[in-house]
């Protein structure tokens, strides 16, 4: 087998790389070219129908984006011009390319441009928005409620009391542990790479497969009640229905352990999927959680048709990064203790 391909597969299962990239600051990031996606294009486009009459959302999609969730402080408008957006996309592409130094360790692990995993080579829908959040209109998360502030402080204190990030596996980020990728939620936001989703529809169900962590939601459309309130799941209890051309998915029963953007477990999520043309799906979501924010907020990410196929992302099974991070931290402590002992009793 091709060596480069092995390196590629290796890089997909190294969660350290995942974490590094998903937390990577992309300064001044903006949005690539294209049409505004918030408008009324859905009204002029009628999606094809599945044999059982659902609007057809099926296919492989990419939610790759360079638009930040929140509008940068120095940007005052809701939309870029096409020229500004193109310029911003070029800037992001250049930054991602610079992160690789040929002939170094970084070249082996992080050369995402070489493997086509960087965003400039990914399928990316056109979007002129300056932030994914479109409500509130300032494009930023609403202020925390009093309860939200109190809980944020409590969570920070609890984290501190558990010790350092590498003291125990339970202190590591969820993504590094291959439990849940923050960016895949729900709600589903793009990351630096592997933003593949597959939608399939069968009578009474819509299935959404996320390539990262092979997460699947099989969403029932039959109007059944949510799971009982004591049953909490990482991806919650999700129920769907159609409103005209739009698939609406309502999610409750989330867990405190995920805490999307600091939300409480009682967060209520409403996702809306609308096919706006053959190659574009408009994905909008609204977060309601008075225990965290003073008002609901909404964001929008356009999804672009992609070619696929998706491949098995066996993250936990190949999680050498996590093992080595913890083992490395223990080795460092041992070395430091030995050096301290040597200093105390020099020969």
């Amino acid at each position, binding site marked *: *087998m091709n060596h480069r*391909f092995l390196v590629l*597969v290796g890089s997909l299962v190294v969660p350290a790389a995942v974490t590094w990239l998903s937390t990577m600051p992309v300064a001044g990031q903006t949005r690539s070219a294209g049409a505004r996606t918030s408008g009324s294009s859905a009204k002029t486009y009628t999606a094809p129908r*599945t*044999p*059982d009459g659902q609007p057809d959302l*099926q296919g492989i999609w990419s939610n790759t984006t360079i638009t930040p969730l929140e509008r940068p402080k120095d940007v005052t408008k809701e939309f870029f011009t096409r020229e500004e957006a193109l310029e911003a996309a070029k800037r992001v592409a250049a930054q991602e390319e610079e992160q690789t130094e040929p002939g170094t360790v970084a070249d082996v692990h992080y050369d995402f441009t070489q493997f086509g995993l960087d965003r400039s080579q990914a399928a990316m829908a056109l979007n002129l928005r300056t932030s994914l959040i479109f409500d509130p209109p300032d494009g930023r998360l609403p202020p925390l409620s009093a309860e939200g502030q109190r809980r944020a402080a409590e969570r920070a204190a609890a984290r501190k009391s558990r*010790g*350092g990030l*590498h*003291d*125990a*596996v*339970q202190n590591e980020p969820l993504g590094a*542990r*291959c*439990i*849940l990728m923050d960016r895949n939620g729900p709600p589903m936001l793009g990351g630096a790479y592997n933003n593949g989703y*597959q939608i*399939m*529809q*069968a*009578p009474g*169900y819509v*299935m959404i*497969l996320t390539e990262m*962590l*092979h*997460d*699947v939601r*099989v969403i*029932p459309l039959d109007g*059944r009640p949510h*799971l009982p309130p004591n*049953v909490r*799941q*990482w*991806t919650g209890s999700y129920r769907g229905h159609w409103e005209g051309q739009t698939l609406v998915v309502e999610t409750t029963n989330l867990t405190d352990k995920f805490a999307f953007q600091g939300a409480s477990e009682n967060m209520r999520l409403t996702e809306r999927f609308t096919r706006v043309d053959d190659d574009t799906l408009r994905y909008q979501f609204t977060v309601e959680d008075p225990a965290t924010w003073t008002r609901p907020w909404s964001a929008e990410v356009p999804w672009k048709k992609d070619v696929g*196929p*998706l*491949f*098995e992302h*066996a993250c*936990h*099974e190949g999680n050498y990064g*996590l*093992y080595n991070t*913890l*083992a490395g*931290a*223990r080795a460092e*402590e041992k070395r430091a203790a030995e050096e301290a002992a040597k200093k105390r009793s020099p020969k």
Partner: protein
Amino acid sequence: MQKWLKRALTVSLGLALAVISAGGQTRTYRAPRAADGKPNFNGIWQALNEAYWDVEAHAAAPSPVLELGAAHAVAPGLSIIDGATIPYKPQALAKKQENFANRLKLDPEIKCYLPGVPRANYMPYPFQVIQGPKYIMMIYTFAGAVRTIYMDAHKEAPADSWMGWSNGHWDGETLVVDTTGFNDQTWFDRAGNFHSDALHVVERFTAASRDHLLYEATIEDPNVFTRPWKISMLLYRRLEKNAQIMEFRCVEFVEELIYGHLRKKPSR
């Protein structure tokens, strides 16, 4: 032609076709159809046997973990294998026995690893089939495993994986799934039955009634077995109105087991 006669003829023609396509075996059931005219296997299914402990015949036995007592004791079961036992090569049989002896350390199920094929189909959890003309998806409870079965554009596996790479086609009433591209990390059960990365599995799903599927799989691996061997069992439809695949994100359950020894020691 009178309506009743027409209907009777249509039904008997369907039955005749089902019998022919099943290769001479007597089968009288013709599955309801999906929109593309193929047998409709959409639904939530589950095996109801004890092969997840051991695909070969086995008596009840104590739990491998003392503290779990009778609650996690080995459930007794009969063989699902045509010919009762797995035709291991002598060295492979020795490795199977070693696997069994060290199963608490080695069984990939204990570590929440993707279960592989065919094991995923007879674990004690339901799985859901979402069927389309181009893809058929199998979504498993255990570890959130998922398989994509490519029905139209058949491809070679791009790389080895835990759940393998599945190409499918219809043989009359039967969905035939041909899976290769496995790694050598998965087992067939909790008894240490294993394979190499040369594993090749051909599965046949045939409706036996509206709510039963006959599941058969031929298992081939010249590195480990002297000849191909076959398993069969029934899969049962989960008929509860509220049946659904629930989350079983077991990584969290095994972290302390796998990484607990790397916890920072309290400083003195």
